[in-house]
């Protein structure tokens, strides 16, 4: 991919993305060399994917919205609402297919309502999705304040479905061979990733997201239905939060009112680290994917390097975020000056 781009200069999107990917690999290599241990096992990467499948899905949706020049901070709360309602539905004796439909339905409903308010009524996206976040969080506690555990046979089968790769496993201290495990949720996340990638690269609608995010007026002159496109971006984001909720439930198997707390900010951070700009028009889901992995790797490194005080994890995350944001700003400023 890189060799192809050598002839023409990289666009801003590709440059920011490349920086992120390079930093991710350097960081991972360095931790493999200096920290060793878990980082040498492939399971470390699988664990990162297993734990963050739902975050990846949510970040994909958020990237689409951010490329379109908007913001959606309701995603974490919607995820939590989906988890709670699906858990309650399953425990009342519902079917697995019903719960999948329910997850998609809730996500879609949030997407449709928020998208309508933002694009057709012209209300600031921050306020609308803030209200969406309040509503979803509040409704989750109305459903149940107590944590709920899923007890459902059909769902347990789905939950236990995982791919075991024995040759990527490792031998534990007691001599047992533990195979590399990938959960079903990761495959759902990867499927979403591929679909969104195709949407953004090769589908007219996806290109329209970039157009309205880059310059709304010229997008209008190109004959793009700006309102409809913006509506679609929120709709897709809502749908992805619904899927993310289901994946979250498959990972934890329980519903809790504080599920996915702060997920929206993590998703925004992943998108930013991946090179998406909040101003719109710039961004790529490949970058977002690596952004999520980078964010998780930082946390893993902090734990592995023995900083066990509870505050270090978020302080280092903040520091790294600061580094990435500054780097992007400096790089972009330099480029825009060069062009002039």
């Amino acid at each position: 991919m890189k060799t192809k781009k050598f002839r023409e200069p990289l666009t801003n999107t590709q440059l920011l993305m490349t920086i992120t990917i390079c930093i991710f690999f350097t960081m991972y290599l360095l931790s493999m060399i200096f920290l060793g241990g878990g980082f040498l096992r492939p399971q470390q990467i699988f664990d990162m994917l297993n734990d963050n499948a739902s975050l990846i899905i949510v970040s994909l949706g958020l990237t689409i919205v951010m490329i379109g020049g908007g913001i959606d901070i309701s995603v974490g709360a919607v995820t939590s609402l989906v988890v709670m309602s699906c858990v309650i539905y399953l425990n009342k004796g519902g079917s697995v297919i019903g719960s999948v439909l329910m997850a998609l339905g809730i996500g879609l409903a949030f997407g449709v309502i928020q998208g309508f308010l933002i694009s057709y009524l012209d209300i600031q996206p921050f306020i609308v999705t803030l209200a969406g976040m309040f509503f979803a969080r509040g409704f989750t506690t109305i459903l149940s304040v107590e944590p709920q555990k899923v007890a459902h046979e059909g769902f347990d089968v789905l939950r236990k479905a995982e791919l075991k790769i024995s040759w990527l496993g490792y031998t534990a201290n007691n001599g047992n061979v533990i195979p590399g495990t990938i959960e079903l949720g990761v495959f759902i996340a990867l499927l979403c990733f591929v679909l969104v990638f195709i949407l953004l690269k090769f589908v007219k609608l996806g290109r329209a997201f970039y157009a309205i995010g880059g310059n709304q007026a010229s997008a209008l002159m190109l004959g793009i239905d700006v309102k409809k496109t913006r509506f679609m971006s929120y709709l897709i984001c809502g749908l992805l939060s619904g899927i993310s909720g289901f994946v979250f439930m498959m990972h934890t198997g329980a519903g809790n009112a504080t599920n996915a707390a702060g997920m929206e900010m993590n998703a925004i951070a992943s998108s930013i680290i991946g090179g998406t700009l909040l101003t719109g028009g710039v961004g790529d889901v490949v970058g977002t994917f690596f952004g999520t992995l980078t964010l998780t790797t930082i946390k893993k490194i902090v734990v592995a390097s023995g900083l066990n005080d509870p505050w270090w994890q978020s302080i280092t995350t903040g520091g790294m975020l600061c580094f990435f944001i500054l780097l992007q700003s400096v790089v972009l400023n330099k480029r825009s000056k060069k062009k002039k």
Partner: protein
Amino acid sequence: MKSKEKKFFAGGFGQLTIPLIAIALLVIFNLIRDPSFFSITLSHNNDGNTVLSGNLISIINGASELAILAMGMTLVTAACRGQDISVGAAAAIAGSVFVKVLMASSSINAGTVILAFVCSCIVAMLFGCFNGVLVAVFRIQPMIATLILYTCGRSIAYWINGGATPNVKSPILSGIGSFIPGIPIPTPVLIVAVMAVIFKLLFRFTSLELLTQSVGINESAAKLNGINATFIKLLSFIILGVCVCVAGMIGVCRLGLINHETLLIDVEMDTILAVAIGGNNLGGGKFKISGSIIGAYVIQMLTTTLYAMKVSSTDVKAYKAIVIVLLVVIGSPVVKKKFDKVIRNMKSLKDADSKGEAKA
């Protein structure tokens, strides 16, 4: 007559139309539901002071931190066309520093409290400066720049406290947090009033308001006119830092302890909401601080009304969201235009009728 009517529907009170309508609706709703909601009584609190109590007082008292933060946030919003989402975390840091200094000093008296306030103020201003430099010098969008402090702010506060939630008890602190002996009005309300007056004086005697608005409306035009846009942006964040410090101090004094996790939790979202309900454009430019203050009281009144209706504290958010959506839908430009059209159609019909009558 005609122009007056037109002016009202186009927002006769300017941007204050929506917050005032919201307050009026809430008051009417409460009057119908339970008129005793507004009763104010004089009672004696545990310390034997004569104090005012009642729902109205608790609304005005409870919204104090929010109102103070909303004042600073309005300035940042106007100048930088974005919001600071780290105010809650920064307030936790300021509160921690405040408590740390008080714990370090041998006794808590007026001098040490002032010293602690000054120290926490400096720290809060430094963090404001950090955000401000990112926004003004490095040209990062405010929401992203402050995301950094939002992520790690509460952990820094935890670190300052050394992993504990220390208590501080003193009559001076409870004087700041609740009532000063002999004065029946809660002290936080007085602090809000003082802050509002300071802002008013600041705008009266300096050209800060004008400069901020011009930077927010068109930065390059402002620069061409010789305004130092970078400095104005930085200044708005530093002023917000002072507001954050005051809010954090009130929060600490109310409880007499610093808890980095729960101090002013989720306040950043409420603050932005207060600014938006106050009719300020979140995209920067013209602003009215009075709108934001009213917005803060609208939010608190809504919350208190819901509590009075026996809604549990965790469920309040859902109902709040519905009211917010209703408010912003009423205030949205598209709905306003439609509404104007309907009014105009009705009027033209009326005119046609009266003309027809005249002819007949």
